[in-house]
């Protein structure tokens, strides 16, 4: 059982995950940010590997990716930076990024290196489900890496069932069909959507992402789901000054306490 499943077995609600881009705001800030987030009480982490053409991302994360790339970030360097991860970070960690860098790195190589540094799962939003099934699934399984699929309000029930069948950790429920960084609209549509998914009794827990940036949106997400993921709001804070590490704890408490 990997760390993600252990987490879901031990903590039943209000799970908080935070996304940040490797190499942003400083090329070597990756590990320090991960440590600060764990210390602040975050339940698991998503480390973004930057891509030049991130179509699903809004301006904040797109900007962080470009800054990281300009500073020299790449997958090799991420794995190098994370090689001592498990000496100081115990919570589950996911890598999140786009398909082309993974393809060029080689899926076998990617999974092997990810497993070596203690990564528990991956989110690759533009990887087609059938390609994952045909070419990636066995490799991911061999290295005990979970693949996390996205679901949006427009995803059909049949497809959600298929995603549930292929998943072995959690389902990433998008709060709305949008790019990252748009605030969650706290309205009846959201309640209806969350309740509909909750009513499907999926075998995997659902964690809500996109649009979660404050206590109100986190609370709303957790009302129907096991937890939520904060991305753009945290990345924005990281870019607001050199004392970002000292602000991590306050940021996290502002979301979930």
């Amino acid at each position: 059982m990997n760390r993600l499943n252990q987490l879901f077995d031990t903590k039943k609600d209000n799970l908080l995950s935070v996304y940040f881009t490797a190499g942003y705001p400083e090329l070597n800030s990756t590990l320090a940010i991960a440590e600060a987030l764990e210390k602040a009480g975050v339940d698991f982490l998503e480390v973004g590997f930057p891509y030049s053409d991130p179509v699903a991302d809004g301006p904040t994360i797109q900007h962080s990716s470009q800054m990281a790339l300009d500073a020299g970030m790449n997958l090799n360097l991420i794995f190098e930076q994370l090689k001592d991860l498990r000496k100081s970070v115990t919570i589950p960690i996911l890598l999140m990024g786009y398909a082309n860098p993974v393809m060029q790195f080689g899926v076998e190589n990617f999974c092997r290196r990810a497993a070596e540094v203690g990564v528990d799962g991956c989110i690759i939003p533009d990887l087609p489900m059938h390609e994952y099934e045909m070419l990636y699934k066995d490799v991911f399984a061999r290295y005990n890496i979970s693949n996390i699929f996205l679901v949006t309000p427009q995803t059909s029930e049949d497809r959600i069932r298929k995603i549930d069948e292929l998943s072995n950790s959690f389902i990433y429920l998008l709060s709305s069909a949008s790019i990252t960084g748009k605030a969650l609209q706290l309205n009846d549509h959201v309640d209806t959507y969350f309740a509909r998914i909750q009513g499907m009794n999926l075998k995997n827990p659902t964690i809500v992402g996109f649009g979660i940036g404050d206590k109100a949106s986190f609370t709303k997400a957790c009302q129907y789901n096991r937890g939520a993921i904060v991305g753009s709001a945290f990345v924005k804070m990281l870019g607001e000054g050199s004392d970002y590490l000292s602000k991590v704890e306050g940021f996290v408490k502002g979301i979930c306490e």
Partner: protein
Amino acid sequence: MRYGVNEQGYYGDFGGAYIPEMLYPNIEELRQQYQAITNDASFKAEFESLLKDYVGRPSPLYLAERLSEKYGANIFLKREDLNHTGSHKINNAIGQILLAERLCKKRIIAETGAGQHGVATATVCALKGIECVVYMGEVDMERQAPNVARMKMLGAKVVPATSGSKTLKDATNEAMRDWINNPLDTHYIIGSVVGPYPYPEMVAKFQSIISLETKKQLLEHTGRELPDYALACVGGGSNAMGMFYHFLDDESVKLIAVEAAGKGVESGHSAATTFLGKEGVLHGSRTILMQTEDGQVVEPYSISAGLDYPGIGPQHAHLYKINRAQYVSITDDEALNAGLLVSQLEGIIPAIESAHAFAYLEKMKFKPNDNVVICLSGRGDKDLDTYIKHFGY
């Protein structure tokens, strides 16, 4: 068709739909409905009627006598420059606006490089009274200012793409983001044979009118419907795919796709994708693209805003890989000189994109009576500033 798409949306190793889940319903809706809609008799009738009466098709196939004399072969020009709005882009825009209408979409988005696709899209949106938003790289907006003005006059909103190289690639990213944010009421009119399946197939079919007409017209001109060579420029590759489409299964027709070498393929300022690129994923399909070892997309360069795209459509990648078509490249200077030559020999100022195809004639050896068709994909009005600066007029 031997070189066509399979049921999963792949051309050999290329194609597919590498899209985030947010776009899946849109792409699935298109995949499920586009064939039924485009095969419907009322769609076909309206498409054909608009191509004839609004676009001005069939576009002529013109025997360019002075060019023919210069190169020692029969050089025919497929005059897409004479279409309404000045390029082949209108063929696809008409097809997709009719599709969008039947899908009950209320809003159109598009990306544009040279502005020709943006103008074509703004035009068909005006024709149908549908809201239109066109994304265009900030750099391209500057160098294609007349087309920006045209789009605005036609009622479109032109949104600058300010990320990356601020050119076509970035405009495409912005349009995709818009579509993700507006999944229900919006149709994205992609302007080339790129993007997730079914776009490459759909756009190729709408552009295949070019080779369909060429076959008939060549038969009338020469008694033979097959040329010896078919040439076209390639950025994403829509005019080339239209020019090649009905010749793909006729192995005797040599297909030549001309990419933009920019300042030279090894200068670091180039868009010669097949020479510089390798297999990967760009804008939703597996294709050949210019990228770093880490899989980051490399900024392309060409003097032609319509050709500086870091990839090619997946069907082109397939034709390249299996050697069905030959992919070559031409520099900025060679293209500009060819544009001037065609202007002075034939009285036709070609778009700089098309001038790339003409420039390759210099590098070919013909047998007497070889029949060569070149897709003159657009007119050069939009490029006058570039021509003026280069030649010092």
